[in-house]
């Protein structure tokens, strides 16, 4: 019995390893375009910026090895290092969950059999298409406390609107709202995920007497976890790099309330000419965002269901 078991295991092992080899070969064949691009176009700049972190390289490209001096500067001297990380994390914590909830709910509604479906889908994607410098400038205008339309509309219903971008308490929230306005991509992806769920699941659930809400929580939500996971990862990564909106709207103010890591990195590298220190900030951001991504990746085994 024992010997038989071992033999079959051996045989199984051999079979398995042949398949594994074929599998591995296929893996490299299919991922080769990316692997090639990564090794040739991406790896060198990454390694190079990693090295930069340990130097005092200036914008003009001259510099020498300084060990951990940039990190000592970050923790001991730079008065804004912790501020920018605190602000960025605050942004991530406000933006990511609300983005996921809103895009899921809207995608859910858009997946239903409603009238004017095409219109609604186009309208919800519209902000993402229009987003850019022009619309960001427009938002600054809308937000303006004195002449902005948002406070005007609020005043019509008797609300005394805040100084959206001018008040340190509201500035980051205003940036979050603007970002939430352009979640068209998230909605589309959520929608594609929801559409992918076989309709037979709903039919059999309904026969079992489940109401719509139950269907959402027991079918749509669990079966959308792969897309939710995707959105969670890419939105988190994107949120950590928030740059354009605060750069155009507030320049990081008021009183550094919207000053983010990416802005601090940019300013140090390209406006103050400290490329080395800029690289250190970028890698600080990388470490935190990567740690979180790996954590999400690891946790996904518990809450993401792939097989229908």
């Amino acid at each position: 019995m024992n010997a038989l078991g071992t033999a079959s295991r051996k045989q199984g092992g051999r079979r398995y390893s042949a398949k594994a080899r074929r599998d591995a070969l296929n893996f490299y064949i299919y991922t080769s375009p990316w692997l090639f691009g990564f090794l040739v176009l991406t790896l060198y700049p990454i390694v190079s910026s990693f090295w930069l972190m340990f130097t005092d390289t200036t914008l003009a490209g001259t510099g020498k090895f300084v060990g951990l001096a940039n990190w000592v500067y970050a923790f001991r001297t730079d008065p804004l290092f912790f501020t920018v990380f605190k602000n960025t994390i605050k942004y991530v914590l406000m933006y990511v969950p609300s983005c996921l909830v809103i895009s899921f709910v809207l995608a859910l509604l858009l997946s239903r059999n409603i009238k004017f479906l095409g219109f609604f889908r186009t309208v919800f994607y519209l902000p993402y298409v229009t987003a850019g410098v022009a619309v960001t400038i427009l938002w600054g205008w809308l937000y303006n406390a004195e002449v902005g339309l948002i406070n005007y509309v609020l005043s019509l219903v008797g609300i005394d609107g805040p100084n959206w971008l001018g008040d340190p308490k509201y500035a980051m929230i205003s940036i979050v709202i603007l970002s939430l306005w352009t979640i068209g991509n998230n909605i589309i992806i959520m929608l594609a995920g929801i559409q992918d769920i076989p309709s037979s699941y709903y039919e059999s659930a309904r026969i079992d007497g489940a109401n719509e809400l139950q269907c959402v929580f027991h079918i749509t939500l669990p079966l959308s976890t792969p897309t939710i996971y995707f959105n969670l990862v890419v939105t988190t990564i994107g949120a950590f790099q928030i740059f354009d909106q605060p750069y155009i709207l507030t320049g990081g103010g008021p009183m550094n309330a919207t000053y983010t890591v990416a802005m601090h990195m940019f300013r140090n590298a390209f406006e103050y000419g400290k490329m080395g220190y800029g690289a250190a900030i970028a890698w600080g951001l990388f470490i935190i965002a990567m740690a979180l991504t790996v954590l999400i990746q690891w946790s996904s085994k518990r809450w993401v269901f792939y097989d229908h």
Partner: protein
Amino acid sequence: MGGKKLTVALVVGMLVVSLVASFSVVAGASSGVSGKLTIWSWGAGAEKEAREKAVEAFMKAHPELQIEHSVIPTADSVWDQKQAAAYSAGTAADVMQMSPDYYGLLSKYYEDLRPYVERDGINLEELITPGFLGGYYRPDGKLEAMPLLANCFVFAYNKELFDRFGVAYPTDDWTWEDFAEMAPKFVSGSGFNRTYFMVNHWVMPNFALICKGGIPYTPDFSTTMVHTEEVAAGLELFSYLINEVGAIPSDVAARSMPAEQLFIAGRAAIYPMGGFEIAALAEEIGDAFEWDAVLPPKISATGQNSNITYATGYAMYNGAKNKEAAWLFLKEVAFGNEEMAKATARVGMPANRKIAEEYWANLYNGPVPNRKYLEGMATSRLNPWGGALAAAGDFWGQLWEAVTIGGVPVKEAQAQYAPLIQKAFLEAFEALD
């Protein structure tokens, strides 16, 4: 017949070719340069147009040169990155637009122009509008670029609002004390009817710095002076106008929204109007209301009108492939080509002294003669926080926000930020070496 025609055509053709060839040889000989020249400018809107017109004038004067001109739109952060990358790869253009604001950061890449000036025996002081050159010299004497244009400020005012609130129009002799005294009189209404004395313009922190006689740093670049009583008094003035009186809106969004809106819509009486924006603003105001402009108020301690200059010019990339052509362009853009100067005059005071004084000064935008800016230039100082001093300047901006938005007492804000400014200031000069 056919043969004869052909012969005639051939002869004429050869004549034309040889004529053109000899012309271009002559023209080439006149400047002694030839070949290809690449130029990168930045600018948007009217600036872009002015740069293109100026380069066209240069091309017309030098058909022997093959010119490739690119205007990069001023998408601030991207231009910074593009030029840094291009310098490090050696793909930058022969001639690169640079502002004295970039001073120091990219020094390594700028050709020292002194030998060229000496070689050609040029007296720059005579040819270039006074006050323009200073910013382009490094402390060690290196001349990093040739000026293109510079702009300072006038204070435009809405006559109708002055009449409405019964305040006498300002004159060039007014002081910051007069300014403070009239400010509260313009505050009225609420919501869309709210009126202000002055709009919130990005140049204000710099005026706050100098309006009571303060200076950003000592002339020898050794120490910052932002901790002084004079600077405190300037900050107190603006803190009072913004927070206590509400004569100037406190709004960081003034950066992104059209800051001129309050003025153009007749809701703010005064707009600090840069020479770079007056043409556009005059057009926007149209005949909506009567307006005029005066010099910015005088600093009582010195009796001189306060002013801040923003300037830009062209540098020669030291990796330039055609240095002689580049130098020719720099000379002409700064002082040697009147057509180029006239093209530039559309967006600011040209560096060409003759054109600045005889042509540009006589132009008007709305009711304001450019001469006003020329007068302002006499007592103006270059934006103190450009380029290598950007880090110190950003701390100054934070001090300003702490006072005007955070309501932090001036002394407290100074105590907190002055050491940071001093440190960033010294770091900037260490990095220069």
